[in-house]
């Protein structure tokens, strides 16, 4: 337990008086895919924003590679090797695809190998290689999501968090992106946290799962050992 790559202990976070994340414990092992499942407003995004340093926790701790990263700002956490791909494929709209990707290697440790990593990203997303100089603002939703994932990959992270990447995308595009994620996990042994609302898909692609409801983790376990009925009940809280 103590050698987990990412460990969240008794984490609390909220907005004013509203508690969005309530005493959450979570562990992610190296090379593991964890699905964080829950309905809208369950606190998934707030939890992960707090882990990634975008949101300040009110109590609790986050450990990454055994180091306490709770008080660190987002840019310091990225340097440690934990990258978040935010919801909606957010890109630097006025910058070219290539510059968007290169921004991902802004972290000092990633700059040295930026050229090779860039080749890897283009190999993973051949579509992007065809539009290096296009401004990211002109791309389709799926392509922007690829740019966002590529940008996170450029930092050579040990753990990646994907916040509802399937939101608003066509099923074929979603399947494609999930295949890429599986490939990233396989080839780089990157630990992956998937925030998802689609229970079936989340169960299929993950090693372990956590179901979040009203700020708490109500059920967690091995994805292959749980039947979908129990999962669904916990998801809706019935």
């Amino acid at each position, binding site marked *: 337990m103590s050698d987990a790559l990412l460990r969240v202990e008794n984490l609390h976070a909220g907005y004013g008086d509203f508690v969005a994340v309530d005493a959450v414990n979570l562990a992610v092992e190296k090379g593991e895919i964890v699905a964080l499942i829950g309905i809208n407003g369950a606190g998934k995004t707030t939890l992960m924003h707090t882990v990634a340093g975008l949101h300040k926790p009110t109590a609790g701790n986050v450990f990454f590679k055994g180091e306490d990263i709770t008080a660190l700002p*987002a*840019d310091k956490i990225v340097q440690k090797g934990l990258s978040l791909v935010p919801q909606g494929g*957010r890109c*630097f709209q006025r*910058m070219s695809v290539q*510059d968007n990707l290169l*921004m991902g290697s*802004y972290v000092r440790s990633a700059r040295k190998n930026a050229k090779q990593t860039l080749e890897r990203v283009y190999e993973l997303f051949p579509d992007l290689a065809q539009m290096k100089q296009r401004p990211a603002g002109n791309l389709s939703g799926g392509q922007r999501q690829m740019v966002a994932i590529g940008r996170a990959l450029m930092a050579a992270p040990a753990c990646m968090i994907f916040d509802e990447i399937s939101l608003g995308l066509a099923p074929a595009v979603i399947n494609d992106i999930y295949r890429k994620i599986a490939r990233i996990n396989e080839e780089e042994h990157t630990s992956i946290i998937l925030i998802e609302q689609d229970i079936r898909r989340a169960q299929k692609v993950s090693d372990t799962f956590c179901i979040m409801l009203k700020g708490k983790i109500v059920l967690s376990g091995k994805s292959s050992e749980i039947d979908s009925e129990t999962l669904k009940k916990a998801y809706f809280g019935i």
Partner: protein
Amino acid sequence: MYVAQVIINGIMLGNVYALLGVGMSMILGIVKLTNLAHGEFIVLGAYLSTVLAPLLGIHPILTLLITVPLMFLLGYLLQYLLIGRAMKKGNEPALLVTFGLSVILQDGMLMFFLADSQHISLPNGMGTIQLGSLEISTLHLMLFAISLVTMAALTVFLKYTYTGKAIRATADDADVAALSGVNIGRIYAIAMGVALASAAVAGLCVGMKWTYDPSAGSSYLLIAFVVVVIGGMGSIPGTLVAGILFGLAQVIGGASYGLPISYVLLLIVLIVRPKGLFGK
């Protein structure tokens, strides 16, 4: 030929106006802050060059080697230690801080340099170059060159360096920039440093072209505003084009109609294209 002469003069003058606006435009586009002290920073740059040139016995242009790094440092520290802290409390406090800075700087310069009008005189005076029937003053040519070199340097910095890319990225989406490992506070400080460095260059230019005094800042701020709004904030080519339009308006309208023409131009841009000519 008269028309060509007017256009040439307008373009030359317009480059100086663009220089007044470019720092303001960067801060609006990147830090999302209206820097009300920008005019005073330009005046400060002018005073620094005015004092340093005779003191060191060097050509006024060479004072840039000192004033540009000095003003960069001042901008960096002001943003990091003062304005950045106010920004954490919201946009209005930060705006008030820049207003306070403008008052402090203006009164400080009044105390230090008195209210006399100043001018940066060039050691070998000014001549003109004859091109057919066109006449171009060497001073204008010099200002034109300084402005173009500054704009080119800024463009290269923003486009090709990691720091420049980080500045553009932060302007686009500060959260995602932070998630890419960018220290936003530091980037804002660098942007303010660069803006003040550009004010140092602008100060030298206005000092060589016109006379100035400690209260001249507000008129520079006004010009900077017009140039930024017409050009679109954060866009260097936009600033350049807007500056030239403004310059042409001044030359065509002369002392009595120059400003009204540019304000009408400003109104038209605000109605037809509120983002500015090059704004995105």
